[in-house]
C-alpha cells in the first residue's frame, strides 16, 4: 500500500472496484446455480443403474458413475447443494450468536464481559470438531443435530472480534459526543455501533461459511453427521474412500475438487467484501 508505481498510469477497462464486484457477482451466481441445480436435478440420475456401474468420466457422465451406477455429477451437485444449505444455516446461526454475545460482552458491564469472555475462551480452547461431534451426538445426530452443532461451535472467534470492535467504537469520541447530545443508549447502539460492526459481521459470516461446510463434511465423513440417506458431500467422500484402492479415482476426486472450489469461492467473496467495505482501502 505504501509503494506506488507512479509511472504506470494506464486506465484499465474495468477499475479495481468493478472487477471485484464482477467477481463477487460471478461467484454468487456460481454458488446459486449449484444450490438450484441440486434442487432441480432429476432424481432419476442418481437412482441405481446396474448396467452402468463404475464408468469413468465421459460426456454422458461428466464425473463418472459409482459402484451402483449413479451419476457422480448429479450426486456431487446435490451433495454440495445440501452442504451449502447446512453451511448457510450454521453460519447464520453462528453469526447471530456472535453478534448478540459480542455486543452483550462489550456493553453490559464487567460481570457479563468476564462471563462471556470465559465462555469464548473455553470454546476456543477445544478444537471445533470435538465440540461439534459432542453436540451433534448428544442431539442424536442427523440434520438437526449437525445444524445445531455447527451453530453452537463456530461463533467464538467472531464474537471476540465483535466484542473488540464494540469496545473500540464505544470509546470513540463521536460516540461520547452522541451521549453529550442527549442520545439514549439504544439509539447509540442502533445508529453508531451496529452500522460500525455490520461489515465485520457480514465478512465474518462469509469467512465462517467455508469453515462450517468443511466441518460438516468432516463430521459427516466420520459418520457422525448426516445420515447416508442425505447424501451430503461428506457422505459421498466417505463412501468413495472405500473404492479408491480399486483405481476408481473419479469417485473422490471430483466431489473433493468441487468442495474445494466452493470453499475457495466463499473465501474469495469474503476477502473482496473486506477490501470494498474497508474505508481505509476504499480507493484502491
Amino acid at each position, binding site marked *: 500500500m505504501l509503494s506506488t508505481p507512479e509511472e504506470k498510469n494506464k486506465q484499465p477497462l474495468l477499475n479495481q472496484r468493478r472487477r471485484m464486484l464482477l467477481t463477487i457477482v460471478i461467484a454468487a451466481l456460481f454458488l446459486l446455480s449449484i444450490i438450484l441445480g441440486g434442487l432441480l436435478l432429476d432424481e432419476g440420475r442418481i437412482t441405481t443403474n446396474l448396467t452402468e456401474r463404475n464408468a469413468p468420466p465421459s460426456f454422458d457422465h461428466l464425473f463418472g458413475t459409482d459402484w451402483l451406477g449413479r451419476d457422480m455429477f448429479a450426486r456431487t451437485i446435490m451433495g454440495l447443494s445440501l452442504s451449502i444449505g447446512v453451511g448457510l444455516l450454521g453460519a447464520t446461526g453462528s453469526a447471530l450468536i456472535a453478534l448478540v454475545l459480542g455486543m452483550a460482552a462489550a456493553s453490559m458491564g464487567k460481570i457479563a464481559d468476564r462471563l462471556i469472555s470465559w465462555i469464548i475462551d473455553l470454546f476456543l480452547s477445544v478444537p471445533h470438531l470435538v465440540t461439534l461431534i459432542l453436540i451433534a451426538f448428544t442431539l442424536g445426530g442427523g440434520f438437526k443435530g449437525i445444524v445445531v452443532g455447527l451453530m453452537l461451535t463456530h461463533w467464538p472467534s467472531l464474537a471476540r472480534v465483535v466484542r473488540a470492535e464494540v469496545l473500540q467504537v464505544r470509546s470513540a469520541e*463521536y460516540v*461520547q*459526543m452522541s451521549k*453529550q*447530545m*442527549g442520545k439514549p443508549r439504544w439509539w447509540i447502539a442502533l445508529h453508531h455501533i451496529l452500522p460500525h460492526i455490520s461489515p465485520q459481521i457480514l465478512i465474518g459470516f462469509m469467512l465462517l461459511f467455508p469453515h462450517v461446510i468443511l466441518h460438516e463434511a468432516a463430521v459427516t465423513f466420520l459418520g457422525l453427521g448426516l445420515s447416508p440417506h442425505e447424501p451430503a458431500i461428506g457422505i459421498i467422500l466417505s463412501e468413495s474412500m472405500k473404492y479408491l484402492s480399486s483405481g476408481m479415482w473419479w469417485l473422490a476426486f471430483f466431489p473433493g475438487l468441487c468442495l474445494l472450489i466452493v470453499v475457495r469461492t466463499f473465501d474469495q467473496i469474503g476477502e473482496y467484501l473486506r477490501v470494498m467495505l474497508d474505508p481505509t482501502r476504499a480507493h484502491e
Partner: protein
Amino acid sequence: MQLDAKDVGFRYGNGEWLFRGVNFTINPGEIVGIVGPSGQGKTTFARILAGFENPIEGTVTLGGLPVKKKGYQPIQLVFQHPEKAINPRWKMQKSLREGWEPERALLEAFGIEQEWLTRWPNELSGGELQRFCVVRALGPETRFLIADEMTTMLDAITQAQIWHAVLEIAKKREMGVIVISHEAKLIERLCSRVVTLNKNE
C-alpha cells in the same frame, strides 16, 4: 447559572492522583483560560466539567445543582481532533443535526457551505470538520462551551474565523467559554481571566 467545581480530585483506579482539591468557577458570558504544563490533567478536568467522567472526589454543580445526566448536555466540549469526533460513516448533515437543528444563519456564521452537508467526513479538511463540531455543540441549551485545544491543529485564518463566531455567540447568549490551550498568545487574546491547573493545588 454559575458552573462550579469544588475540591475536585481524579485518579485512575488506585494510581497516583492526577490532581486534587481543584476549585474552579465560571460565570455566564465569561471567557476563562485554563493553562498548565502538559500531562497535568487539563483534558481530564475538562472531561469532568462536561460530565464525560465522574470526579473521584468533589462535586461539579451548575447553578448550585448537580448537572443532569439525561438529554442534551448544557456543558459541551469540543476536542482537538475533529476527525475523531465525527462518525466516519455518516454524512455531515447527520452529524450536524445529531443533537439539535442548527439554523442557516448559524451555519453561515461559521462559514459552513450548504454543499458540505451532503459530503462524507473524509472529503472535508480538518478546519471544515471542526466548524461542524463547534456548531453541533452550540445548541440552544448550551450554557458553557469547553474548547480543549479546539484550534490547535488549524491554520491562523481558520482559527480566527472560528473564534470570532464563537465569541459573538457567547456574547449574544451569555454563554460561558472555557479555553484550554498551550498557546499563550491565543489565551491572552481571548480570555478575561486565566487559571493555572497545578498538580495537588
